[in-house]
């Protein structure tokens, strides 16, 4: 069964940005923060109160898919939860960024202004391999509500 990413042990995060840089470096072939599908942000200052990891939660019934006005731009993964964006079809100029607006996790999907595409995690697991403290894990999805 394909797995999805879970931010399992957030309190362990040391804010090294290795997950962010690995995602951009390996998936996007770029040294960047913006192009990564995963983001780390501080809560109340650098390290005093801790960190938040912002990333797609790999929904089994992703609300970002039905609201997209561009046919074929975003679709659910066949199994395992989460979505895949077809970059040749997705065009952020032609829509109102409905996927971004609909997702209840602010920042889990964002628009990259250079390539005008929705950037969202595709559950590849690269980030888990560059987390030094085991914050991120891949696990088989279980239904919620």
């Amino acid at each position, binding site marked *: 069964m394909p797995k999805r990413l879970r931010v399992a042990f957030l309190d362990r995060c040391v804010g090294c940005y290795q997950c962010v*840089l690995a995602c951009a470096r390996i998936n996007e072939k770029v040294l*960047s*923060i*913006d192009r990564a599908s995963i983001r780390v942000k501080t809560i109340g200052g*650098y390290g*005093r*109160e801790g960190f938040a990891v*912002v990333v797609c939660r790999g929904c089994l019934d992703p609300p970002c898919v039905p609201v997209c006005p561009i046919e074929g731009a975003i679709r659910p993964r066949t199994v395992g939860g989460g979505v895949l964006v077809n970059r040749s079809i997705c065009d952020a100029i032609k829509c109102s960024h409905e996927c971004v607006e609909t997702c209840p996790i602010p920042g889990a999907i964002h628009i990259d202004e250079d390539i005008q595409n929705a950037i969202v995690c595709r559950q590849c697991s690269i980030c888990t391999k560059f987390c030094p403290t085991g914050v991120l894990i891949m696990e088989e999805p279980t239904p919620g509500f």
Partner: protein
Amino acid sequence: MKIIPDRILVINLTTNDHQFIDGADLFNEWVGGVGVGINLLNKYVPTEADPLGSNNAIIFAIGSLSTFYPIISKTVALFRSPYTHDLGESYAGGRLSLALRFADIGALCIIGKAEKPSIITIINNEVLIKPAGPLSQMYTSTVGRILRELIPAQPGKRSILRIGQAGEKLVRYSNIVVDTLRHFGRLGAGAVLGSKNIKAIVVSGNKDIPLDQAGIDRKAYLKTYQKIWDLCVNTEVMKKYHVLGTPQNFLPLNELNSLPTKNFLYGKFDKVTEISGEKFVETYLGRRVSCNTCPVGCIHVAILRERYGKDLADIHSTSVPYDYEPMALLGSGLLIGDGVDLMKLLEQTEKYGMDAITTGGVLGYLAEAYEKGIITDSDTGGLPIRFGNCNDFLEVIHRIAQRDGENKDLYWWAGEGLDRLVKQYGGSDIALRFNNQTPAGYSTGPYSMIGHAIGGRHSHLDNAGYSLDLKSIGKELQSTENMMKLVKEEEWRNTLNSLIICLFARNLYTPQLVVECFQSLGIIKTEKELQNLGLRIQKLRLATKLRFGYNFLDTELAIPSRLYEMETGHGKLSKSLIKEHLEIYNSILIERYHLNL
């Protein structure tokens, strides 16, 4: 965006304008960091510059490999030091190198003086000078919180530098707090910003560097990255930094009679276990944090719980970053043998923005001077300054940070540092200092102290003499050979500091690995070139010190008398031993660096 930074931002506060200039040649020749920064310092700071005048400059620089590989996370600040009056060179982690890299700024030069208290904001190419009046006298943590709201940014790309009240009051060893937990410390960078009317600098950028651009061998780059990652995370090389952190030094140094205790008189502290790395991890550690791109997580943050009222629940808590050297100087150095008291002292220096090591040295002098009657209640305004008494020291730190230039009392002079205190009140023999600098927490033997004396910025980080002491215990000292080891260590550190790699990773980033890092990015550098870079930078650093008036032959500066009374890991040090080594160094200055003394 290119691999090697090629843009330098120059901000003139006097004329309130800025320009981006081409730095490609400078970065190609000097790699970055201290190599580039020292050239810019010599360009922008005239020989007659007043360290606290508008003709001083402060330069921040990153390196060619910054952000490309793990633990290449530092930024250097260069300025004429208001504390030593010569080379001001200081390093900080946090997110600044990441923010500068993604704003496509290799170096930032700030010259002139703003008319009123100001904040500098740099967001990619946009540079603004904003009023900072309402932020005056705020604690460094409060300024950070307000600026995070004032200047929103995308996650992970913003860095906030600020000074505290000590910087505003031009305390000569005030620091710049970087991203809450890190600092440009020791040499008075905070006072330099204060003298320029700059309360804070915010840097943010979101440019990208394509890894499929010409020159980069992407497969080789990913392979080299993975290799460094494995060394960091899956070997013992960096382990000591992420488990106990630097405070792991307490117990072994105490065992070796090398822990500075009671203003450097003794080498052992009977309450060492209470302030040790083990005690802090077991009792006070709240979390560990990393600088950007570093998976080590060496920044240990303790939770300080304090009661502010009479009710059981009248408790507030504060996060306090802790490292060995500040803990040694404010802990065993002052006979503070309680972890909570030590955290209170660390926090007090943190919120006012004062260098903790130097503050510890100044407090140590004051406590011993008070004990010996060199200063009395009439000097202190009725405040006792006693070893082991946390509340006395908290109050002294408060008064130094709030010092009043109109009323030049003890606290005003204390804000000037040890040399001026000694000149005003006497007691030179009890003020251990090298060109005004308090040595860090290593009473390990002759080479730690000689290292401070000869180091470009009189810091333990210049050449790690303490390491040579530990290796020399029980052996006959080979003076010429060992002096060359210190000299070559400082030169290689110049190379690391131009790249600009955290020195905790100095054993990981071998010359061969650095060559490979460049090669994977399509840049050819040989080991010999890199070694020679360190030598060339050292020549420039020494020439800069000479230009600013540092007297290499003044043995009074180099040999404080406390040096011969203190207990060290090599016993008490003899004058003849130190003299012999410094004479060897003077011949090295002439023969190796061709310095005209």
